[in-house]
């Protein structure tokens, strides 16, 4: 029996097939399918039913500490009408899993969640149709409870008694409508995350914890400075250690050892025996942002809205905001395991990695090793918290290079804290110039916005050359890839959230991407959205104060979107914004507000920050309202928003990557401090659930508005404005 899904009755409200605008003469383009189904169309790529009553769900998106795997399980269980306990989430693996590119940009719920909603709905319909066929009844009369199909006469058939392998052996049609939000029983409820028990019981969970048979331990000796070349190497002392093999390929140097602590010792000895050339040099630390404007630039106007009538500008205000380079600073260091097997035509490479994009990583490894892609298998295994393009991909190449000297044994490489902080890709420095033209009431008539930054993307798998760290140091080195930005339609990079969502009669926004890249930078949480919202929302606050208008009221004058207005008003009300002046506060206290529609297409988030000026900027409390459309797992959303806000508070009051003329000096936690338990603010999050709106991600929404709200609160407390991040005591003093 091979059911044609097209014979299935589309449920009411099923999405109509989108016809291509221009139909090619020969092969008509396949219908567009929802979410990642469009690029991974086979149903059996997503779902499998095991005879023992387990539903295997195979997402291409991966767990990076954000709890996505649990949310995706909820979605699949909802549509299939099975208990959550029946769902087993399968780790992503190249060749097996859907290729969903990169787990990034708060897109997993949109892309993978949407695919699973539709795949689940279609799978359920196919199973019901098959039961109906066997019983010769109308599928519409059947009921399902936890995977058990029953008819009016009381007959029962479980999903796992049907030949789901045959039923799912097809492309999805996208013609079966998922449940309406009102029918949800699991989506929209808080469920405990699947991964947390392993983590609190200390069970092996991370790629760091894998212990493959015969596994050896690899470590890399990084160059003395970025771009430095190895001139000579005395490796005798390292080689004298028991079980140590030294690996060298040009300026890439490392060791493989039988014991991990011996690998560490060997690298320390290699360091003493290595002579390096000068590095390529780093930009000035003083005047960095001025220097950025002098660099060769790729300049693009991304918004050019001109007023139809000449605006009656009576006054121009020019404001400049800056952001430093930042580090991802995950608590766990990047880690990977690689194993070579076979030789010649039979050569195969297996990799275990916490990469955000296993197919993309595979493409770069394919270039470096000249291997056909099917001969490389990469399996995702969790790593420590991932907030963007960190060292996960880089360490995978390190492991592959070192494993070549391990005679077929797997080699695990764990980066040092110094590698993690100083050699992972960094978040780019940014410089923003705003010119606002005001009318007599101080309202904004024209808005000119320029942003200077490196691109925010050097992810692997997208360029003709590998972008992985070690590739630049090989005997046959690859050029350093210069970071680019994703298309604005997918959120952009440095221009993310650069277009202000205010109703200005005139708005011109220009992005200047640097074509030089002395620090290796890439995507970190919210990308340009962090600095752009810091700048836009700081400027709105400044202009409100200049106009003598309350900052909430001033924003509302320029806003039309009801969802934006709702988060702003919700946060303001819960923080008792308008009661501030009539209530008692500590000396040096202030409050500030800011909001974002993340990527200008995603979640709405408004933040009220309350600070107290002590020796440092003490962030006391963050009151947050968020609207992610349809909420899948409320506690998961709150956890992400809370975490994003606390991380942003840390960036905003503490963090800047230190470096000198040659090297990154942020090499340990003392050189790169982050907020600790005593320093983090209280965070209160409320979700405005909109079950009929598209579900969007929550991970990055809080980053930008938290920064601006804190800066605005500092200005409120002190009456002076700090426009350069981070808001350190020195910066605050200088502004006074």
């Amino acid at each position, binding site marked *: 029996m091979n059911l044609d899904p097209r014979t299935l009755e589309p449920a009411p409200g099923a999405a109509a097939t989108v016809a291509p605008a221009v139909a090619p003469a020969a092969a008509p383009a396949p219908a567009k399918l929802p979410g990642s189904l469009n690029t991974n169309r086979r149903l059996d790529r997503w779902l499998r039913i095991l005879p023992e009553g387990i539903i295997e769900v195979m997402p291409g998106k991966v767990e*990076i*500490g*954000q*709890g996505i795997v649990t949310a995706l399980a909820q979605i699949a269980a909802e549509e299939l009408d099975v208990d959550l306990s029946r769902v087993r989430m399968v780790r992503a693996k190249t060749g097996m899993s859907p290729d969903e590119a990169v787990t990034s940009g708060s897109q997993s719920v949109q892309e993978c969640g949407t695919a699973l909603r539709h795949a689940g709905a279609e799978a359920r319909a196919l199973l019901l149709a098959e039961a109906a066929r066997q019983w010769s009844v109308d599928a519409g009369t059947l009921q399902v409870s936890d995977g058990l199909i029953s008819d009016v006469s009381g007959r029962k058939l479980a999903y796992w008694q049907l030949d789901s392998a045959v039923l799912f052996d097809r492309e999805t049609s996208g013609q079966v409508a998922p449940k309406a939000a009102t029918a949800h029983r699991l989506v929209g409820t808080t469920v*405990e*995350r699947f*991964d*947390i*028990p*392993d*983590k*609190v*019981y*200390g*069970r*092996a969970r*991370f790629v*760091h*914890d894998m*212990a493959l048979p015969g596994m050896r331990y690899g470590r890399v000796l990084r160059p003395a400075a970025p771009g430095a070349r190895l001139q000579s190497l005395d490796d005798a002392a390292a080689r004298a250690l*028991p079980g140590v093999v030294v690996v060298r390929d040009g300026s890439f140097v490392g060791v493989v050892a039988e*014991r*991990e*602590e011996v690998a*560490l010792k060997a690298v320390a000895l290699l360091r003493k025996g290595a002579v390096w050339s000068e590095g390529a040099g780093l930009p000035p630390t003083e005047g960095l942002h001025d220097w950025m404007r002098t660099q060769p630039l790729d300049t693009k106007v991304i918004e050019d809205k001109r007023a139809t009538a000449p605006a009656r500008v009576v006054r121009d205000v020019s404001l400049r905001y800056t952001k430093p380079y930042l580090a991802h*600073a*995950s*608590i*766990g*260091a990047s880690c990977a395991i690689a194993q070579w097997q076979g030789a010649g035509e039979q050569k195969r490479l297996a990799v275990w990695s916490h990469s955000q994009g296993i197919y993309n990583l595979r493409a770069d490894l394919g270039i470096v090793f000249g291997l056909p892609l099917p001969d490389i298998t990469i399996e995702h295994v*969790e*790593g*420590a*918290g*991932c*907030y963007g393009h960190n060292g996960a991909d880089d360490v995978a190449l390190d492991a592959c290079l070192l494993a070549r000297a391990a005679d077929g044994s797997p080699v695990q490489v*764990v980066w*040092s*804290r110094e590698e993690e902080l100083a050699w992972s890709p960094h978040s780019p420095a940014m410089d923003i110039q705003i010119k606002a033209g005001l009318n007599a009431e101080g309202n904004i008539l024209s808005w000119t916005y320029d942003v200077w930054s490196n691109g925010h993307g050097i992810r692997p798998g997208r360029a003709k050359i590998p972008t992985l760290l070690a590739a630049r140091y090989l005997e046959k080195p690859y050029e350093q890839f210069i970071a680019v930005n994703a298309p604005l339609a997918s959120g952009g990079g440095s221009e993310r959230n650069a277009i202000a969502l205010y109703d200005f009669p005139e708005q011109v926004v220009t992005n200047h991407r640097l074509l030089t890249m002395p620090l290796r930078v890439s995507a970190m949480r919210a990308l340009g959205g962090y600095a752009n919202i810091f700048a836009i929302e700081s400027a709105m606050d400044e202009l409100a104060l200049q106009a003598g208008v309350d900052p909430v009221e001033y924003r509302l004058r320029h806003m039309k979107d009801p969802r934006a207005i709702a988060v702003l008003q919700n946060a303001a009300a819960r923080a008792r914004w308008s009661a501030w002046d009539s209530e008692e506060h500590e000396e040096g206290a202030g409050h500030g507000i800011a909001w974002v529609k993340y990527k200008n297409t995603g979640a709405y988030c408004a933040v009220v920050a309350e600070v107290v000026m002590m020796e440092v900027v003490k962030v006391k409390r963050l009151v947050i309202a968020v609207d992610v459309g349809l909420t899948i797992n409320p*506690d998961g959303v709150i*956890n*992400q928003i*809370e*975490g*994003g*806000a*606390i*991380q942003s508070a*840390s960036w905003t009051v503490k963090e800047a990557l230190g470096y000198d003329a040659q090297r990154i000096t942020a090499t*340990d*936690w*003392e050189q790169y401090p*982050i*907020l*600790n*338990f*005593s320093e*983090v603010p*209280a*965070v209160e999050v409320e979700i405005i659930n909109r079950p009929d709106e598209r579900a969007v991600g929550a991970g990055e929404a809080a980053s930008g508005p938290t920064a601006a709200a804190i800066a605005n609160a500092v200005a409120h407390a002190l009456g002076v404005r700090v426009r350069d991040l981070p808001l350190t005591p020195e910066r605050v003093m200088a502004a006074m």
Partner: protein
Amino acid sequence: MSQTITLNVNGQPREVAASEDTPLLYALRNDLNLKGTRFGCGAGHCGACRVLLDGHAVASCETQLWAARGKEVTTIEGLGTADAPHALQRAFIAEQAAQCGYCSSGVIISAAALLARCPRPSEGEVREALDRNLCRCGTHNRIVRAVMRAAQEMAA
């Protein structure tokens, strides 16, 4: 030089064949397959590798095997299991006090040391006790709630 060292780990004598300057962290993880104790920085700054040594929370990355000899080492696995969880482990699940969870075991160890010496800590005392444990995901407040919940449960 490599030698056999006997350690008391989670109430059991365990033999490790390693040089006595080996960090306890690697003996636990690689020789004894106790992977719950995690490498974070190698310098005792972040707390991810904390274990109890005679009841005190210490960084196992900075504790060499010779210094652990004759002492009782308790790792996250020794604190409790899914079948017999420690109150802290139960509370961390109840409060969903993790995101990536990489720092969790070290945090729970620090909290266990705190609750042993101070059964009813104030919120401020909990925060202070955890200041040498770093969390990057921003789950601090959930963690503090979980520790307070466990303290309450243990006192009841």
